[in-house]
């Protein structure tokens, strides 16, 4: 990527006014992956942040052009690996929309339950990682205790703990594990009893609050202009929950609230995610006892051919709006595929919200943006 000489050249150019340029990343504890931020500092104050991407770019969009409609779903698990199930769901929905495939109710219910479990798991990981960015190590282990139960459920159900690949166009790959309902209920009980621990340890912690309140403020207008979605935009008061606005699967049959905060700072983003976990639990509780009997996969042809045209679907991942845009020429593979990943837009706002704040604030802002680098780099 950027070789040594270029980095030093940058430094001397910008360093003339007493500014300090540091390369945060590609290996840095707070970037959670291979994000490379070139940060211009004046003392401890940030003057400019410039992301350099591409360290984990695999050109998934190009790869998908040579994969059939059955195959390309599973590549998307590797993008936002924390919401892999929801990514798969978005792609499957697109194919089902394009070919008018009927999906059995049972599959729909299970897809939604697993989506919400994925969301909780993702937020749990974020909670731990973000607290760690702020220097508190312990919440990480508390969050992982609950996340572990979800990954166990996923392992039983899909055979994988992280990249689920459980969805096929038309339904699911195979039926549920017999213990699924029992385990999910056990998880809900455990989660509800432990949520107060997070509040004691993190939310009500005076240092945590002073580190996050009023830090990285993003106004509603800027959130829309920067294309921010998900908890980042909702913390600024922008209603953007795809599950509410354009309901897919059975989200129109369940009751849940779109969590909105108005402050737009890091603490608001934190609160949105914590409250969202509770909403996800609410959704799961409504569905878990009502999974209808029947087929888990609808009737599809062996070879899928999307009709000529353009298709777009969007789903709400743990990070925001995930869109799939497919241009089909009528063949077995897409002509062009574009993934609108939430992380990419959320990253673009980083410079805007952290200029003028301190290095410590950058950790709070970046932590609450919840960046997953493969999702940004695709």
């Amino acid at each position, binding site marked *: 990527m950027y070789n040594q000489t270029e980095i030093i050249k940058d430094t001397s150019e910008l360093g003339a006014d007493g500014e*300090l340029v540091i390369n945060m990343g590609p290996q840095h504890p707070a970037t959670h992956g291979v994000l490379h931020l070139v940060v211009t500092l004046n003392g*401890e104050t940030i003057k400019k942040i410039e992301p350099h991407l591409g360290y984990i770019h695999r050109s998934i969009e190009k790869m998908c052009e040579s994969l059939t409609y059955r195959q390309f779903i599973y590549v998307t698990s590797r993008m936002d690996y924390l919401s892999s199930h929801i990514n798969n769901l978005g792609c499957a929905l697109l194919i089902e929309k394009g070919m008018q495939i009927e999906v059995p109710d049972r599959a729909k219910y299970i897809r939604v339950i697993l989506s919400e479990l994925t969301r909780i798991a993702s937020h749990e990981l974020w909670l731990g990682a973000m607290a760690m960015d702020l*220097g508190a190590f312990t919440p990480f282990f508390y969050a992982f205790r609950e996340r572990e139960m979800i990954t166990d459920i996923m392992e039983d159900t899909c055979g994988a703990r992280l990249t689920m690949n459980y969805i096929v166009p038309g339904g699911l790959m195979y039926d549920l594990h017999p213990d699924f309902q029992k385990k999910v209920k056990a998880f809900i009980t455990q989660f509800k009893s432990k949520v107060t621990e997070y509040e004691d340890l993190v939310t009500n912690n005076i*240092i945590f609050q002073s580190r996050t309140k009023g830090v990285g403020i993003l106004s509603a207008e800027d959130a829309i202009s920067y294309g921010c979605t998900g908890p980042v935009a909702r913390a600024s008061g922008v209603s953007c929950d795809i599950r509410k606005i354009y309901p897919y699967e059975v989200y129109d049959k369940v009751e849940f609230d779109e969590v909105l905060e108005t402050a737009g700072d890091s603490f608001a983003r934190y609160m949105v995610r914590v409250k969202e976990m509770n909403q996800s639990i609410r959704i799961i509780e409504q569905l878990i006892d009502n999974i209808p009997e029947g087929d888990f996969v609808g009737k599809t042809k062996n070879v899928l051919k999307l009709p000529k045209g353009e298709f777009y679907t969007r789903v709400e991942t743990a990070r925001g709006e995930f869109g799939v845009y497919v241009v089909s020429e009528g063949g077995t593979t897409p002509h062009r595929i574009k993934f609108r990943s939430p992380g990419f837009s959320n990253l673009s706002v980083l410079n805007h919200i952290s200029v003028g704040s301190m290095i410590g604030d950058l*950790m709070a802002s970046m932590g609450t943006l919840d960046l997953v680098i493969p999702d940004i780099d695709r």
Partner: protein
Amino acid sequence: MFSLEGITTNVQDWLLMKFNPTMALAIECVIVILLSISLFALLGLVLVLMERKVAAHIQIRLGPNRVGPGGMFQTVADTLKLIMKEGLVPDKADKFLFNLAPFVVMMVGMLLLAPIAFAKNFQIWDISIGVLYISSVSSLSVIGILMAGWASNNKYSLIGAMRSGAQIVSYELSAGFAVLTIVVLTGSLQISEIVNAQQNGWWIFKGHIPAVIAFVLYIIAVTAETNRAPFDLAEAESELTAGFHTEYSGMRFALFFLAEYINIFIVCAIGATLFFGGWMPLHIGNWEAFNHLMDYIPSSVWFMGKTFFLIFLIMWFRWTFPRLRVDQLLNLEWKYLLPISLFNLLLVAVIAILGWHF
């Protein structure tokens, strides 16, 4: 009753019998140096293991449990690994300062060991200005850290060192004022006299509220002075990768690591001496039987028990709180802790003059 006093007197008598006084003093010096170095090594092993076990307990996990019974030899294995690692020096680093820095930090720790009373009459150097000596020497450690940060030729190190400089210099004040409250109550700067003054009760009990306030201030200030979370801004691994010791590896890194734990031990030992009576057993008023029973516990056990309790307290902080931001850190000191400690000093002076303390 077991006491270390006998050993020291016997050794001195024997040496004086065999050699002339100068020679005996020289040999005693060598013994003391050897003892303090081995104490350092031992403390490093014990405290690192303790930290990992405490952290594991707080974080609902087991901690090291493979090497030796209950993971007891984990730190030995780690030390072996660190010794065998290559000590890299960055290309454009200031080699002399880079190599010197860890030793400066270590030396400060060793110097601080001198006036600490480990047990009854078991003290290296009962200097008459013990408390003053401690506060002056402990402020030297910042030089080592600044040296490391500057010499590394690394921007992260530099930022870490600058943070650390601002932090240690500020929190020195609160720590100093907290120590002064006890000096006011005792009327002496000598460690042995401060301990003896607590024969009928520890200052934290006898000194009313000002002593409690002073203790809280002291614990906060020394946590900051030793660069421990929530004040570990000099390292701040999520912001500055490893702060001032980013470029250090192998044994040089191990020395920084060791110095951190030694410093914790020393500040906790001083805290225990000032507020919890050092090696003084717990005595309660007129309960003769109880006091007598307490006297049976050796004084060294009392001292170590109190010190390790305070160390546990500081470890507990670290694994519970997030890190402060640098401006919040300095605000906390200059806007809150310093005014409080000044007022507290005034209060304790009034109490001492009027003789309200027990």
